[in-house]
């Protein structure tokens, strides 16, 4: 398969601290690749190095067949970026934002004007064409940022936490649009810490922590490789006592977090049968998901 982004041995330190520590990645044409990791895992630094915005201390990056950062400018002609924080031009209307951004890619005004109607339609902003940016809702701003990233009809789109801070309706619309982009054959690289987002959108995922890649594969593979297939969450004031006494008998592994005990099991039936007899405890039985994998791989401690 054709590799659109190829990374080997990527390293970056700030003030003696390794932020990215020997990263290898290969992202194929037409796939949606998710980079997961807690805050400070090195996701944004990695994206910035792939775009050639900061120089790595060591390692090699090839973006669309071009060496980065040496030929980053040429590579970025065919790349779209949705940044973590909105940086639309507040003085401009929706259409002016697209026009001005298109010029940065060397497009003529005529070329951009011709694209604006379809970009607005894609972003569900057709009737907001002449609205000023400060009057848009958070979801509209995100959609405009996405439309802006498509102004140069890029082959690869980088999305840094594209749905952070959006309400569920707005997130679903963005997800739908991102799926349409992969169907058109675009390659997507996105960072997120929403596991449902990663599970729905991404063909392949890499989990990063402390600047290293700790697991990689399709969402299903990550779950199969890293964790027991069933999870029983047990809640209640006495859940901790109960878990310390009984959980090990029924579960391959269990974790306590607040008033919940998370029991990871191959077969949930004996545990569920046992819990049905415990009137003080409530429980939820569900298949293991990416969030379980993520918490197992990166721990439950808060990252600041």
């Amino acid at each position: 398969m054709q590799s659109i982004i190829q990374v080997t041995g990527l390293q970056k330190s700030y003030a003696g601290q390794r932020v990215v520590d020997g990263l290898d990645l290969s992202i194929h044409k037409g796939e949606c690749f998710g980079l997961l990791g807690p805050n400070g895992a090195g996701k944004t630094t990695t994206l910035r190095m792939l775009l050639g915005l900061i120089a790595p201390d060591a390692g090699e990056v090839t973006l669309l067949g071009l060496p980065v950062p040496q030929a980053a400018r040429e590579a970025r002609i065919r790349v779209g970026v949705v940044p973590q924080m909105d940086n639309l031009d507040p003085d401009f209307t929706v259409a002016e934002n697209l026009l001005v951004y298109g010029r940065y890619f060397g497009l003529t005004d005529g070329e951009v004007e011709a694209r604006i109607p379809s970009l607005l339609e894609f972003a569900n902003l057709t009737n907001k064409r002449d609205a000023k940016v400060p009057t848009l809702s958070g979801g509209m701003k995100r959609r405009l940022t996405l439309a802006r990233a498509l102004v140069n009809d890029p082959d690869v789109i980088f999305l840094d936490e594209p749905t952070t801070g959006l309400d569920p309706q707005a997130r679903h619309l963005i997800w739908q649009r991102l799926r349409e982009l992969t169907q058109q054959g675009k390659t997507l690289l996105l960072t997120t810490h929403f596991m449902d987002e990663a599970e729905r959108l991404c063909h392949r995922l890499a989990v990063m922590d402390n600047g290293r890649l700790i697991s990689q594969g399709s969402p299903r593979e990550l779950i199969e490789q890293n964790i027991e297939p069933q999870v029983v969450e047990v809640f209640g004031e006495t859940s901790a006592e109960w878990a310390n006494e009984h959980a090990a008998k029924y579960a391959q592994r269990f974790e306590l977090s607040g008033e919940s005990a998370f029991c990871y099991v191959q077969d949930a039936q004996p545990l569920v049968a046992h819990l049905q007899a415990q009137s003080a405890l409530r429980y939820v039985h569900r298949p293991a998901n990416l969030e379980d994998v993520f918490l197992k791989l990166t721990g439950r401690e808060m990252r600041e």
Partner: protein
Amino acid sequence: MNMQEFALPRFSLRFFPIWQRHWLVWKKIAAASIMGHLADPVIYMLGLGYGLGSLLPEMGGMSYMAFLAAGTVCYSTMNSASFEALYSGFARMHEQRTWEAILNTPISLDDVVLSEILWAATKSLMSGVAVLVVIWLLGLSHSLMSLWMIPLALLIGLAFAAIGLIMTALAPAYDFFMYYFTLVITPMMLLCGVFFPVTQLPESAQMVASVLPLTHAIDLARPLMNGTVPPQALLHIGVLLAYTLFGFYVSLVLFRRRLSK
């Protein structure tokens, strides 16, 4: 130490769409902006010119108002370049993240910094021309030589934009700029011959004034407004160009360092 931070700037024509962006923003607030360029310097020039001018026989071989006119063009261009490079530049770099958006396209930081300097100089040019028009209308300068004030306003703008950007690159927040305006810009207005000849100052202050960019700007402007060729014109132009190149290079290195974090 990262040697790439010290690389010489690489120019490209890609700075132009950024200049166009600033122009489009400016057009939306043009009326207020022209008002701002004009009101303050013209009020000072007329107020002091009539008020003090009536007490002073003449200054430097011309009426006090005519003396002030040259200084006024220079300091108002200095001010507009400085405000643009510091406050508006900082807004675009930090507050609005405009630079971040631009840097994700095929445009490099070198292009962005160049466009900031050229845009601030454009604002200076507009502000200088606005004041000049008032001066011409008031009949304070009759010489065709005063048309040379137009390119001079651009050159003053380039120099002050470039050194102003050093402050922008270092600033943690807007408050920081107060140091520059109260410790650098305001003293320059009083030391460099805007309101009275530099020769009135004590020798030590004259020494300081002789290296400041505004002094050289005014040494060019005053003869031009009066219809004579400025003595040592090449020296003064050279000093302003040197400030421009120095400010551009130092601010670029500092921006590279700041934005690589």
